[in-house]
């Protein structure tokens, strides 16, 4: 089943605030072979917050996405400033585009990541490929 066509243009409520700890940044940097220098988070760290917004989209029963059929097609970040320890971040996801190609839904999402004062930190653009039952066979 294709996802609901009215999904395009829809904005979801912000995710609950995520407090970035020094320990988490050490753990994330270590997991990718990097070293946390006490300043900027690794560039891909905002995926942790964006992932929460994408998960909320994928688990929303009104949207009609089957989680096990989803593949991460594309990811892009633009940064206003690096994430730092102590940030309280929320992600607000908008579905920018929705296309059907060969039985798959191509869902273009944009998650605006902001700090506790609502100031922009980073925008995470993700393309999710939702394979239909026919395409998955």
């Amino acid at each position, binding site marked *: 089943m294709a996802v609901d066509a009215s999904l395009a243009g829809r904005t979801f409520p912000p995710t609950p605030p995520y407090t970035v700890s020094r320990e*988490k940044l050490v*753990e*994330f940097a*270590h*997991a*990718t*072979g*990097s070293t946390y*220098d006490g*300043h*900027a988070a*690794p*560039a*891909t760290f905002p*995926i*942790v917050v964006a*992932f*929460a917004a994408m998960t909320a989209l994928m688990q929303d029963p009104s949207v009609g996405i089957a989680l*096990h059929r989803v*593949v*991460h*097609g*594309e*990811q*892009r*970040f*633009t*940064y206003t400033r*690096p994430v730092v320890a102590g940030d309280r971040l929320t992600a607000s996801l908008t579905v920018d585009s929705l296309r059907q190609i060969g039985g798959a839904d191509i869902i273009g999402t944009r998650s605006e990541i902001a700090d506790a004062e609502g100031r922009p930190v980073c925008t995470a*653009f993700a*393309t999710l490929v939702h394979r239909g039952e026919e395409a998955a066979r």
Partner: protein
Amino acid sequence: MNTGDVLPEQTYTVTRADLVRYAGASGDFNPIHWSDRVATSVGLPGVIAHGMYTLALAARALDTWAAATGRVVELGCKFTRPVVVPDDETGVDVVVRGTVTNVTDAGVQISLDVSCGDEKVLGMPKAVLRA
């Protein structure tokens, strides 16, 4: 950095243990990144690296070339081919290459090449570093 500069190639070895560590750090526990049984059931050759793990390795190379963290103002790619990670001590090598394509007041544009064996695993990976 100047336009046309070819940046020093970075080689990173990826093992199953790295994927488990990344799953915990990122919160992405999709079993295709740790279970051969699940990975093969959806048509993959075996456990594959998280696409975001591979992009994180590209970001690691950028920090190395910039000799600093926090300079990345733009980073993106398509996830075109999976990085299959064998269940052994050796793992698999991911190679990150970069070329400076443009330098302006706004930043340093870098075209990346992220490969595993003879295959490019990321599509059109590119980044901009703060000038």
